[in-house]
């Protein structure tokens, strides 16, 4: 090998500033209308959340036990592959969730992007979004409000697939007898959220 080749192999290296890249890229992509989905991690009392937002609103809230790769793949396929980690874009969500967990906020004003929701589930989840802080409904009641009074079980499935837990408060839907029912994020989280709102059934 010649000296010249050796010199070329000893190329200058420069550390890539990943943080600056993330910030710069998100900013420029946003300005150019190329950022279809932005996501970032947030801390919460019920573990790390990852939130996804689009120009239309909040698209997805992911609990820590759900693998991120699967959620990213789903969002890439069903919404857009133009996805970037962009913490600044999720600031409004962070502020409202922080306010909620600190009991300074009882309702969310965030716009919702319902792109991941289809059909009957959409009706159920939109009704669920109207249940006020501190209140609860039964699966049957939510099904009825969504137009199918006998579809309590289907309503349960729809709530189980809620892409936007906490903000679309599926934790406020219980069995008619006061039993907690299910929760996609696990019953401990459902219990925590109901207790936070002062609506955990007494005998639970």
């Amino acid at each position, binding site marked *: 090998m010649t000296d010249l080749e050796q010199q070329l*192999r000893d190329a200058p290296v*420069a550390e890539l500033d990943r943080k600056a890249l993330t910030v710069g890229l998100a900013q*420029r992509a946003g300005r150019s209308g190329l950022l279809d*989905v932005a996501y970032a991690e947030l801390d919460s009392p019920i573990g790390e959340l990852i939130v996804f937002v689009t120009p239309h609103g909040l698209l997805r809230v992911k609990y820590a036990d759900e693998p991120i790769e699967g959620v*990213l793949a789903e969002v890439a396929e069903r919404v857009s*592959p*133009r996805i970037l980690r962009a913490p600044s874009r999720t600031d409004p969500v962070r502020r409202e969730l922080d306010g909620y967990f600190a009991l300074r906020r009882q309702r969310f004003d965030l716009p919702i992007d319902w792109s991941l929701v289809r059909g009957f589930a959409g009706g159920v989840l939109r009704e669920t979004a109207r249940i006020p802080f501190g209140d609860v409904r039964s699966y049957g009641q939510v099904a009825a409000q969504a137009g199918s009074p006998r579809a309590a079980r289907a309503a349960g499935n729809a709530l189980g697939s809620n892409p936007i837990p906490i903000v679309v408060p599926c934790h406020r839907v219980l069995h008619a007898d006061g039993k907690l029912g299910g929760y996609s994020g696990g019953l401990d989280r459902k219990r925590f959220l109901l207790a936070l709102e002062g609506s955990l059934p007494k005998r639970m």
Partner: protein
Amino acid sequence: MHLPPFQRLVDDHAAELHRFLVASVGRTDAEDCLQETLLSALRAYPRLRHADNLRAWLYTIAHRKATDSVRSRARHPVSELDGVAEGHVASDPQPLPDDGLWRSVRALPAKQRAAVIHRFVFDLAYRDVGERMGISEEAARQNVSAGLRRLRMEVDR
């Protein structure tokens, strides 16, 4: 058509593209070139018809951006003294080792420059150089040797 989330491309390839661009355009312009590369890729991304070789696709874009950047630097040259006065060098606190050679690399015709960088900076076989550049193994070999010839002349001068 399943395209991975774009952030995955950034996570997997930003560091090597940056290295390629540092060698191609210098440290000062590499970061901007990298952002330009990723923005162009992001713009075209949903229209890609297959996700077979996203890495080569990114290198093609980076190569184009590097060429644009080298051309625009050639049109608006910054002499070294100007650089000192304008803080151009100050943003590059550690001068590159053997900067003279890398200036000559930057001055190579675009294909030769990219081929030389892939071959030596990334230590790739000619076949892989060709694959990253979307040219044949033979064309990669020719570009590397033409580039080396030219560099030798510069260095010996």
